[in-house]
């Protein structure tokens, strides 16, 4: 294995050769595009292909499956160097739930055949994945799902409805949690199936949210087919697969910083809108204190992320601390949106039109959509149950899960 300095220098060289300069600093645009569109063109297509070829779309995955086989410290160097030159790895966004959730779980639970068939498409950003987990009547109580799959020759036949399937309308594959044994107890008898979305037996319907259009869909299975080879893990033991998958989700949500965040320090935005007094203090002493509290909370969260990483001595593993970090990240982000709304005053209350600038309208949307952070991926309350039970060892309370 090459040492860090050598590796960094190799990455620099690779970026010089492979990153199209026209994309420099276009992080927000690339993220937006890759999140909603499959067909890329020109420099963006080239950049995806170059990333895929080097295995840098999912750099820590084995080379055999489309990754680059990097260690975590190396992957960190790669990310740092990309950021330094204004580049951005768009493959995770192109792969939907593929890189962050499905891939790591397939790596752990999948057969060699499954790994070979599914991982390269994810790592190259050519196959987008969605996840069919929640159902309309289940919510946080995932285990009460009713979508069924019955064996039918070489296939499973799926029937039922999923909701909150992010990107279902543009995904090529889906990971679905289904009931394969109705006679078993709630958490038994569940399996995790992978199936292609391009079949007439699957219909999707986009969900409009309070913030407007959304990536979410309702997804209907009407004798949809999944190959028997595409059951991940053991039959009827999908619950353990999904628990792991959700841990990966939580892990990916522990960062309070949002991509595309303003370069301006938050307190400077506040000063711009609110003004300052003769001593240079924000001209709203009440808001100033809450802003200070918020900035302290944000720093405390970041320091805790760093500390927990250091304590794990580089082992980036799915840790029990993810639940506290998910909740603090959520609070920090939600309060930031609320404070932004407040400091903008009437300008923060717009929906559309040229009386409000982009920053103002964006904040309204992200304030609203950010309310989901404490609901999805294990609600705020569910995380507290996990902390209380799994970290603190308090006895099971009435709210199971």
């Amino acid at each position, binding site marked *: 294995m090459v040492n860090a300095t050598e590796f960094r220098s190799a990455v620099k060289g690779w970026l010089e050769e492979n990153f199209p300069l026209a994309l420099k600093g276009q992080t927000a645009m690339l993220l937006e595009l890759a999140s909603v569109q499959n067909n890329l063109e020109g420099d963006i297509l080239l950049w995806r292909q170059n990333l895929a070829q080097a295995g840098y779309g999912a750099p820590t995955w084995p080379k055999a499956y489309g990754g680059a086989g990097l260690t975590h410290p190396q992957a960190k160097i790669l990310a740092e160097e990309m950021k330094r030159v204004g580049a951005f790895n768009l493959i995770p966004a192109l792969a939907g739930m593929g890189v962050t959730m499905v891939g790591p779980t397939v790596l752990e639970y999948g057969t060699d055949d499954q790994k070979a068939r599914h991982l390269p498409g994810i790592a190259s950003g050519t196959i987008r994945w969605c996840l069919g987990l929640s159902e309309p009547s289940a919510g946080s109580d995932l285990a009460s799902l009713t979508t069924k799959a019955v064996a039918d020759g070489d296939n499973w036949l799926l029937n039922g409805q999923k909701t909150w399937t992010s990107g279902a309308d543009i995904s090529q594959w889906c990971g679905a949690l289904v009931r394969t044994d109705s006679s078993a107890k709630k958490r038994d008898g569940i399996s995790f199936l992978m199936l292609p979305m391009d079949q007439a037996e699957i219909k999707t319907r986009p969900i409009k949210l309070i913030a407007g259009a959304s990536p979410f869909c309702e997804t209907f299975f009407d004798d949809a087919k999944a190959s028997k080879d595409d059951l991940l893990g053991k039959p009827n033991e999908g619950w353990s697969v999904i628990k792991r998958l959700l841990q990966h989700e939580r892990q990916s949500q522990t960062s309070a910083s949002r991509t595309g965040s303003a370069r301006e320090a938050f307190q400077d935005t506040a000063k711009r809108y609110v003004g300052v007094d003769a001593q240079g203090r924000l001209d709203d002493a009440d808001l100033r204190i809450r802003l200070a509290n918020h900035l302290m909370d944000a720093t405390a969260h970041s320091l805790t992320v760093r500390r927990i990483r250091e304590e794990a001595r580089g082992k980036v593993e799915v840790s029990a601390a993810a639940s506290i970090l998910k909740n603090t990240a959520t609070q920090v982000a939600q309060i930031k949106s609320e404070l932004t709304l407040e400091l903008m005053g*009437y300008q923060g209350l717009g929906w559309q039109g040229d009386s409000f600038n982009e920053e103002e309208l964006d904040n309204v949307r992200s304030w609203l959509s950010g309310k989901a952070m404490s609901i999805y991926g294990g609600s705020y309350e569910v995380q507290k149950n996990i902390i209380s039970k799994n970290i603190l060892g308090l006895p099971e309370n009435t709210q199971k899960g």
Partner: protein
Amino acid sequence: MAALTEEQTMIRDQARSWLTEQYPVQKFREMRDSQAEFAFTPDTWAGMAEMGWPGILVPEQYGGLGLGYLTFGVVLEEIGRQLTASPLFASAFVGASAVMLAGNDQQKQQWLPAIADGSQIVTLASDEGPRHVPAAISMQASRNSGGFELNGNKTFVLEGMAASALVVAARTAGDAGDQQGISLFILAADTDGISRHALATMDSRGYANISFDKVSIPADALLGELDQGYALLEAILDRASAGIAAEMIGTAAQSFDMTLDYLKNREQFGQVIGSFQALGHRAADLYTDKEMARSCMEAALQAIDDNGENIAELCSLSKCKTGDFLHFMSNQLIQIHGGIGMTDEFDAGLYLKRARVLESCYGNQAYHRDRYARLLNF
């Protein structure tokens, strides 16, 4: 609810049944989706006028019912529950208060009957920037031959597009920041030189930014004494705060009822979610805050009716506590409903968006906390 008089109880019951039957929140949604011109439908306003609501404050001698602020609060609360869109509050509550507090008899004769029968929509144009700071008014009202000339801008004027007349606070002396030198005027909204720009706000209510370019108005447009308008403006804003707090209690109470209902009926993990102690305690917190906020809201309106000594204090208390409760409640409305609360087809989002706008109007919680402390001299 306070110990209502028989009359107040009757008005409340009538308002509740009329609004839930004729103008439930679904109608507000339809209005939003149809993008109605003035952000309300004419039939709503006509129906309210028919019931006499625009005249609740206006004294009988000016063609109104003279029923007072607490009674109007009872109606506003029911309106807040259904988010019913109309210019009632802007004109018959705030506009009427302005004329009643500041107008001379001739002005009252001119405006109050027309407010009371709904034929005029009079609204207050006070703030000039993104935040509520009454003393910061810098709009100029300079003397000219016939009276005054207005130049400047007003922001976030409630029902500014629908208004037929404006009560404008402008500077006849002093500088922005001075309390002295502010005067009030009342003028037709279509006076030459006024241009109005509709705002598409997240709560789909009617607001406008209004600019004044060499707007000539006669001397008798002056409302109250020259240069002495600040105290009047504060008194009008006190009433506006107290009234909007009643609407806020309605919006929050409806959110509470929806949430409580959901807690009692939604099942997860094999039991109704209201049986989870953490949610039961949160509901208890919400209920407690609701009762506290209601007491403040009613006390402020009652104090105005009684012409009490501590009106300003109670109005700031009311706006602040009601705002705090509505903020907490609207966030919990979404949180407790979970995924369904995030969808546009469910009503929670409508209440959440309205909540933040109501919090901002006439001074947010921070503004009124500071003002309360100033009023208590610390």
